[in-house]
């Protein structure tokens, strides 16, 4: 098989090829290492790990030969550079971590490693996962492989997990890890035309993941197909006693839950998601999605989630509040970058002032403000109450439906540099993804079509807590109906 052909395979088919001896993990890895190199202009990886990848490939081939392989053995993946990896520089796309090399391995990356995956490198992201366009990365934004032509401005892959999404879309990784706090997996998946899954809060361990907002952060997979996402999530998920918020839930065989169709399932269409000024392309892809699941045998009903429009402001209080405390540890005292000052406070100010980028500083200040004496009740406490109401909205809806179908984003990928001077319009990117984050619900983004410029558009399916099975099943129905098989132009040219 040629390298170009190898790069077209998804996890399910590549796994079969490896086990049948059609090709080796070393061959597959070499193809991907070429792709990583060829796609460097996309600024996907902060750190490439080719030596580690080859060592992993050798081990994977051994395990396949010995018959001890898993479904993920031999799969070359990208790791969002928010997961601490032992012995490999971990940056969170921030200058403040300096040359930080973790002496420990996050639970998620450890599970993937144990399952025989191959680490291609650490992917780019918004600094500390704070952003929706990858532009807050201290290493420059990753670039969306779609529509990358000389005459057009490069597009954002979305954020914060933009590097991981771009890697999978560009064929520079067969799959990748992401984290989602308010949409950081689903929005980039939609922008890049791939599948991104945020599982139920507590499904994946947060241990060893650089924290942004602890009550919202949740790891999940990026993949080319719903099936691949299910296979990869199965490896990532599981109770972890080192994370007190990790759920003591058995991990189902997600791949098996995909099959079985959606006949008789009730799918809710939340009317409040039909926002003012919604672009026609979004409305139309949503309508198409509704037709698709109806045709597949699901029953579609309109539901109401009255608190929807309060979700974004609630999120932008809760997340910065938690972040302001989570990021207090980056103080220049023990590790990472330090900028000297005249005294202790001078050192703190210089280190944090220069180490953090503008957006991170903005959120730390918002978070500090909403927790301050005199403002706590009006902001943080109120936001917590609204958060409870948002959860109740979903609970009520799930009395009558099995899942919800919504757009993932209010638009397609936009050029890098747009919306930079207006944080609010940037934050509006998350309007459809944030409610499920606040409620801790599983949600997937599946590519369903393209807009008139040929850019991919995704739809989101939100499920009940720990009912990833229904989410995957509906996602599979959309994928089957949409037959979205477009690939970004760059990939096909770059890999010939």
């Amino acid at each position, binding site marked *: 098989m040629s390298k170009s052909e190898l790069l077209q395979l998804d996890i399910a088919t590549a796994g079969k090829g490896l086990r049948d001896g059609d090709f080796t993990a070393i061959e597959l890895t070499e193809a991907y290492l070429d792709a990583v190199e060829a796609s460097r202009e996309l600024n996907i990886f902060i750190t490439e790990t080719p030596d580690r990848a080859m060592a992993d490939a050798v081990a994977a081939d051994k395990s396949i030969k010995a018959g001890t392989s898993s479904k993920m053995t031999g799969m070359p993946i990208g790791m969002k550079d928010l997961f601490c990896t032992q012995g490999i520089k971990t940056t969170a796309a921030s200058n403040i971590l300096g040359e930080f090399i973790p002496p420990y391995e996050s639970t998620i990356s450890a599970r993937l490693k144990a399952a025989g995956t191959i680490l291609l490198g650490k992917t780019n992201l918004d600094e500390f996962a704070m952003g929706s366009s990858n532009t807050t990365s201290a290493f420059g934004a990753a670039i969306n492989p779609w529509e990358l032509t000389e005459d057009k401005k490069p597009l954002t892959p979305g954020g914060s997990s933009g590097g991981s999404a771009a890697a999978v879309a560009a064929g520079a990784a067969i799959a990748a890890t992401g984290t989602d706090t308010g949409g950081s997996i689903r929005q980039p998946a939609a922008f890049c035309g791939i599948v991104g899954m945020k599982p139920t809060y507590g499904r994946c361990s947060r241990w060893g993941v650089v*924290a942004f907002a602890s009550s919202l952060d949740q790891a999940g997979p990026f993949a080319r197909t719903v099936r691949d996402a299910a296979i990869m999530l199965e490896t990532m998920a599981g109770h972890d006693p080192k*994370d007190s918020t990790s759920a003591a839930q058995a991990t189902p065989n997600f791949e098996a839950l995909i099959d079985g169709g959606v006949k008789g399932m009730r799918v809710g269409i939340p009317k409040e998601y039909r926002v003012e000024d919604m672009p026609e392309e979004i409305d139309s892809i949503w309508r198409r999605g509704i037709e698709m699941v109806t045709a597949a045998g699901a029953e579609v009903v309109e539901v109401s989630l009255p608190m929807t429009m309060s979700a974004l402001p609630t999120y932008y209080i809760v997340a910065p*509040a938690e972040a302001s405390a989570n990021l*207090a*540890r980056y103080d220049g005292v023990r590790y990472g970058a330090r900028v000297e000052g005249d005294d202790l406070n001078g050192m703190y100010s210089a280190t944090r002032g220069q180490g953090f980028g503008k957006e991170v500083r903005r959120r730390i200040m918002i978070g500090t403000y909403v*927790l301050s*004496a005199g403002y706590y009740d009006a902001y*943080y406490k109120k936001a917590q109450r609204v958060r409870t109401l948002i959860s109740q909205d979903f609970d009520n809806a799930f009395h009558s439906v099995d899942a919800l179908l919504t757009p993932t984003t209010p638009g397609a990928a936009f050029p890098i540099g747009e919306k930079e001077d207006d944080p609010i319009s940037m934050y509006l990117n998350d309007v459809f993804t944030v409610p499920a984050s606040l409620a801790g619900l599983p949600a997937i983004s599946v590519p369903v079509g393209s807009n008139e410029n040929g850019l991919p558009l995704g739809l989101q399916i939100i499920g009940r807590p720990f009912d990833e099975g229904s989410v995957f099943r509906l996602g599979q129905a959309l994928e089957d109906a949409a037959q979205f098989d477009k690939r970004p132009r760059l990939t096909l040219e770059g890999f010939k």
Partner: protein
Amino acid sequence: MSTLIEGREGQWELVIGLETHAQVTSEAKLFSGASASFGAKPNSHVSFLDAGMPGMLPVINQRCVEAAVMTGIALNAEINLVSIFDRKNYFYPDLPLGYQISQFSDPIVGEGWLDIELDEGSTKRVGITRLHLEQDAGKSLHDQDPFRTFIDLNRAGVGLMEIVTEPDIHSADEAAAYVTKLREILRYLGVCDGNMEEGSLRCDINISVRKPGGALGTRTEIKNVNSIRFMREAIAFEARRQVEIIEDGGDIDQETRLFDPDRGETRSMRSKEDSHDYRYFPDPDLPPLVLDTNYIAEIKSRMPELPDAKRSRFVNELGLTEYDANVIAADKSSAAYFEKAAEKAEPKLVANWVMGEVFGRLNKDGLSIVEANVAPEELAALVVMIQDGKISGRQAKEAFEKMWSEGMGALAVIQELGLEQISDDGAIKEMVASVISANPDKVAEFKAGKTQLLGFFVGQVMKASKGKANPKAVNAILQEILGQ
């Protein structure tokens, strides 16, 4: 007793509330697996969480929860079935996370009370406001280098119980009695070693003065007082200082002060204006701590007997005096030693021996009761021999000395020293018979009425027995035979 203090313009009343930080005796820290033991090489007991590394998460140490519940029960307090861990945010190099995990609005233990004993034998009830769990900070070392500060994180993250009283305390004596009693209970429960010098028990003193019955005055807080003597000195100094300021027409600043033991005075540390806004909020890394009533009942069922209960049992069931019961029950190990010995021997006699010989030797050798060279079972054996009249008190002391210094058992020592009295009637009768037959003239005199010769016969028998015959038995047998 009057607790009022004299000022120039009449009497003032002291109002004191105490916040005591008690380090939980545990293998591990409150949220990490690192060792919580004292005195190790700097930075050798530090987990990745304790060092504030990225992505590290706290997991509650169940032992610390259990200690808090036990202490709450001992303080007659309400155990909250749901409590919450909050982040208390401030920047300092010995606080690696940039926040302390503590409990703010929903502590694990609510209101309770503690009865304290005052000098005249009276008791006083001090209200407990709350008890919560929190992390200790690390230690900043400013004296290791002329230009730099070093940080030791061994203590960072160690579990503390903060126990807060109502402002019910009105004198240094009461404050001292409270801390003494609290420490006794903590040690009994085994939840804190109570060692104030090592800092495992330390007090913040909130103190104000007012005219008796008047409105509360402005308070100051004296931080981290680490001995009962310093606490007395700090309270005396601070009360005097406040009275003088007010009598001179000044106002008390609400501020945090430090006690300087070398100069015996308190000094301003920071004023209210400098106080932090800690921005408390629930720690999203930790779900609410939920306890069920079965768990609490189970802990209650295996709680050791507390000092007050022990004292009254010693008095009512074992017949000890109040004084003896107080002395012995003040320390759990001493009480255990006593009880072990008193299982087999007369408790009052055992109490005398524990408080006399045992405490005396421990004192002299600088040992604690658990290091005693005479096991309680052996002390009991010795006391039983006294009870049975086998040895005299004087002989027992001689034997005890040898048991202590050579680590021998009671019986072995008695035998080696040949101290065991002959109380066997047959043996004594034989000796009496031979003494009588050897002294027919004295027997005749005795029978003729010279009864004072009895002493002579006793002496002869004792001599024949090499001093081992039980004098009482000898006396009785002589009288019996000579009186025939």
